[in-house]
């Protein structure tokens, strides 16, 4: 947003108050003071968070408030959709106030902690800065607490460890009713790729999913005219297990098959956001996606991972929700607002979940309290980021919770009790 020229605001101040009177100094838009009562509440909350992270074996680190632009560029955080605070040092290098904590910690893992034993289990509490419009419980400077688990085997156990810790954290912070949805970045990526949109439309599809703009998504999915008529490259053409016949009919036949696959993928992209719930939803999704597995084995792999995560979550005592958003199994008996609150989160899959960070490569998390229309917790797997920052290729996963929003959720929860 454009700032008002100071001459205007001076004369505005003079008109609203006595001419010449000194106005009170305010803090700039998007940043604020924390007064004693809030500071105290925040310190108590942070103590609980630190304790929870430490019990799980995560050690706290601190990184500087600004980094060279390259760190966030590697993480895809300085594209134009991300509005960051940028400035120059006296040598003319571009510095960025951190818009995110994961990239600095991945940088740490790639550099000073490159030789440390794996897996690294690191936690942090710190302020991040995004130059965006102040909206819905979020200033331009806000505080995040989170963990990163970097290195070791790439395993579903790591995802589960982080998921369970996310659940425990929200519960320890006093939230009784919350849900954590699990999506999969690779599933979305593969399905969009299978749709064979031209590059620009493909990006728009991903954006439509991320912004949950289902009207735009339907428009993009419905554009039959943009379907490929010829195989794009030899690598994508012959379906495995079948040799292409010779001659011109070959390319015709293959292109028809490719077009059919693309057409199916486009239909399924449209269905993605509706697939939310437990095992039964995964099974339904698998049945629908199966025809694409030959060409896109990543789809099957992603579904397998999600199934393992649900099974692991259940085994760890978390409740799964069904497609109605209710706890599976004991539905019907429990009325909302009854004292029998679940002490663990409700966990389920949301296959249409796309986080606004492009570095995710696997399962992604989104946690929220149903009554409060704000996302409290986000996270996921990012297996390429450490390498992109100059480290070795190693798997990594983590989550962050927004402290201001968490405090808001706690207030609302205690007010409604």
């Amino acid at each position, binding site marked *: 947003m454009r700032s008002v020229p100071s001459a205007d605001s001076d004369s505005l101040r003079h008109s609203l108050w006595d001419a010449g009177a000194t106005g009170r100094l305010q803090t700039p838009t998007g940043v604020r003071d924390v007064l004693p009562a809030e500071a105290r509440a925040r310190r108590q909350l942070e103590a609980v968070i630190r304790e929870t992270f430490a019990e799980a074996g995560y050690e706290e680190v601190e990184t500087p408030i600004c980094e060279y632009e390259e760190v966030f560029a590697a993480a895809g955080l300085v594209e134009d959709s991300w509005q960051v605070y940028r400035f120059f040092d006296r040598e003319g290098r571009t510095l960025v106030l951190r818009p995110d904590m994961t990239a600095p910690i991945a940088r740490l893992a790639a550099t000073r902690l490159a030789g440390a034993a794996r897996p690294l289990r690191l936690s942090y509490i710190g302020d991040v800065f995004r130059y965006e419009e102040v909206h819905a419980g979020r200033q331009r400077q806000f505080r995040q607490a989170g963990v990163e688990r970097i290195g070791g085997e790439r395993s579903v156990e790591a995802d589960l460890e982080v998921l369970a810790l996310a659940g425990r954290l929200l519960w320890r912070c006093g939230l009784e009713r919350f*849900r954590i949805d699990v999506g999969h970045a690779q599933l979305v990526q593969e399905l969009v790729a299978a749709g064979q949109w031209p590059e620009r439309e493909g990006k728009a599809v991903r954006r439509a999913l991320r912004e949950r*703009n*289902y009207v735009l998504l339907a428009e993009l999915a419905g554009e039959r005219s943009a379907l490929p008529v010829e195989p794009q490259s030899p690598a994508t053409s012959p379906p495995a297990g079948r040799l292409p016949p010779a001659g011109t009919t070959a390319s015709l036949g293959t292109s028809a098959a490719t077009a059919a696959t693309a057409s199916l993928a486009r239909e399924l992209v449209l269905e993605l956001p509706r697939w939310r719930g437990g095992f039964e939803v995964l099974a339904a999704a698998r049945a629908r996606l199966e025809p694409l597995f030959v060409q896109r084995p990543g789809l099957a792999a992603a579904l397998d991972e999600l199934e393992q995560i649900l099974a692991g979550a259940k085994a760890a005592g978390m409740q799964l929700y069904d497609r109605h958003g209710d706890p599976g199994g004991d539905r019907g008996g429990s009325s909302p607002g009854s004292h029998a609150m679940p002490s663990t989160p409700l966990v389920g899959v949301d296959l249409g979940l796309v986080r606004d960070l492009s570095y995710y490569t696997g399962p992604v998390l989104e946690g*929220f309290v149903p009554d409060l229309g*704000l996302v409290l917790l986000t996270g996921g797997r990012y297996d390429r980021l450490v390498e992109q920052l100059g480290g070795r290729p190693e798997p990594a996963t983590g989550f962050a919770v927004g402290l201001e929003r968490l405090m808001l959720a706690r207030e609302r929860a205690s007010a409604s009790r």
Partner: protein
Amino acid sequence: MLTIALPKGRVLEAATALFREAGLVAPESAPVADSSTGGAAKGGTWEDSRRLILEDSASGLRFLLAKPWDVPTYVEYGAADLGLAGKDVLLERGKAVAELLDLGIGRCRMVCAVPGDSGVTALTDEMLPFPFRVATKYPRITRTFLEHHGVAAEIINLQGSVEVAPLVGLADGIVDLTETGRTLRENGLRVIAEVLPVTTRLIANPVLHKAKQEEVDRLLERLEQVRAVRPGPGAGRTDLV
């Protein structure tokens, strides 16, 4: 219970009709203003009513009457689960809300127009003034649109009666909504570029949409059946901003 923010004004009548047709509002609880009688219809209408929150006990829906520009804000903050907003308002406001359905009502076009006697016929016309002074209620959309077309512009932000601006020498042209083109013609304005087709969308708070999935899906299904489907020209263009 779902709370739905409805925009007062131009679209409210069509919206109420749509909800009634979908069986989501009992006919007697929400008589629609008859525009032929100047809104003063029999039996007290939503338009006439001074109450801003109305409940329909049969469907379990609560309606919140808001200024059209404020609907996305109510929804973003979760004060309403759902809302009805024009694509013009959504793009100009840029709020983080989910867009669930194109309801097909409130259909109009956002266009760029100049005085018919100016001799300018297109944005690429070399007679286009430099910088092009444009009066609009939509500074954000206008800036993005004109930048995209490489037009150097000075944007004059007005709250209404935008068509008058070129007549009194305030601006060289306008960007505004037009339904039939009548107001433009009456003010001697000629369309030189289509900016965006506009319809009313059903929007949702992204989290509440998930939390109340079943209720929302039921509503969505019914509205899908009755919505006025008629894809306009250039229906893929809503990704402009």
